[in-house]
């Protein structure tokens, strides 16, 4: 029913930014296929006349006054970072050579 291919899983992994190993791609392809076979049954009962529910309790958007509240200091915000320069998070190159 749900035709999941290794190429699809490879593409999904790149979208999700996970460098899956070839072995993981093989096992996830088969697991995803059997899970999708089961969950695809939702399409049978979801007829056009049924509205979608995104949230369990009806809510309205919430606004607050635009005033400065209690926030983290830069030191606190950076405390758990893998790398920083004292005031900013530090990362490697944003663009690769071919870009």
């Amino acid at each position: 029913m749900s035709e999941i291919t290794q190429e699809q899983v490879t593409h999904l992994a790149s979208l999700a930014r996970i460098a899956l190993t070839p072995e993981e791609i093989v096992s996830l392809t088969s697991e995803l296929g059997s899970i999708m076979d089961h969950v695809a049954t939702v399409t049978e009962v979801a007829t056009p006349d049924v509205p979608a529910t995104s949230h369990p309790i009806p809510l309205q958007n919430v606004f607050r006054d635009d005033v400065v509240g209690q926030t983290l200091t830069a030191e606190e915000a950076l405390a758990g970072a893998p790398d920083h320069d004292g005031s900013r998070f530090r990362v490697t190159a944003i663009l690769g050579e071919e870009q």
Partner: protein
Amino acid sequence: MTTDLTRLTADALAIKLSSGEVSSVEATQAHLDRIAAVDGSVHAFLHVASDSALAEAADIDRRRAAGEELHPLAGVPIAIKDVIVTKGMPTTSGSKILEGWVPPYDATVMTKLRAAGLVSIGKTNMDEFAMGSSTEHSAYGPTHNPWDLERIPGGSGGGSAAAVAAFEAPFALGSDTGGSIRQPAHVTGTVGLKPTYGGVSRYGAIALASSLDQIGPVSRTVLDSALLHDVIGGHDPRDSTSLTDVWPSFAEAVRNADVAGLRIGVITELQGDGFQPGVMERFREALALLEGAGAIITEVALPSVEHAIAAYYLIMPAEASSNLAKFDSVRFGLRVNPKGGGTVEDVMSATREQGFGAEAKRRIILGTYALSAGYYDAYYGSAQKVRTLVQRDFAAAFANADVLVSPTAPTTAFKLGEKTGDPLSMYLNDIATIPANLAGIPGISVPVGLAAEDGLPVGIQFLAPAREDARLYGVAAALEALLEQKWGHTLLSQAPDLSPSEMNATDEGAV
């Protein structure tokens, strides 16, 4: 004396603390000693905060001695599920990607616990990012069920349930996305309640699926859950989905428990096929007791429940794949630099490959698929429609019943390793608990005895309409009293002793 303190309920301990009969330092030390004695075999804790707990306890004792007016629960120890961020205590959500991270802020529930003077004794084990029903997906090794160390303690909040069942803490915080508070309660003979969605702030709870997640209490008695719920509940401006309702006292609901005239609807679809005979036997026995106490037992149908798991396993991974995008190796947690360097995206991909476990990867990929172009309407869109159908079923059922009831899960605790090779069979185990999350309604699991065939705990689940959490405390407390009167003891008094001699029964070490 010190071992006796760990057998007390939070309520009983609180009374001894306020009368001055026991100090918080004594109570806290007793629980730390118990953890040291049994957690080598149970592995309920990922972090034991001995020093800060004793310091917090000493502070409460000092304030009490100075005559300060304290919250009735001040000085009582509590365990915290590791999904909740805690200032000064490491928080990993059961994942290697957050190993060693110490959050710079407290979740709102932690702020409330601290304001009430509760003493945080540590962080409990869980499936990675709360993805699982057994704690076997924890990156730090599984928790063991105190009733049988070879079996699962439930999940994802197996650590909190096991800590409470093993008398390592009188109560604990849990979180419930598809049953992660209620199913562990079921398999460990404890009590756990998932509040109405929005009833307890989610600020500082590391999100799995934001439209389903809810923080709630885990305890040995219904009253203790109610007391804890009274502390953590209420509106929080930092959570945009937090309800602004003024909640009644849940402890009061327990003290006024009465089921006379209460209409209890038995859910047709959640019994029979696939449900273990011993689970059904205890379930029917509990219903008979309630009927004898004046409750009116009826049968209600929830026809869309059969599609609830399918909808859940589309909505939850979809939301999870989005929520877990924040683990990008930039602001917190692990960073893995691939060989030969690379761009920030290469670093991100290498970090997420190494930092996430198999189940987290499975759900992220599944969620990414469900949300991807060309499939979105068929899968995610359809799942949201099923959510509407489930809500309509509940609305119709609650027109004829005040509360609904089912077994909390189809079986008692299965063996560690039994289902890890088959993700789908693990998912199907959540059939009874998932519908409440899809509909946002509250649910509670209370122990109803041991299954005849394996001697393991069985729980019953009550569900109420949104905002009617108090009803659940009433019916659960009434049933608890009827059962304990019949047995002449609590269920947990029958659990194995876990004496230190059994400590080396497994080689799982506490972190």
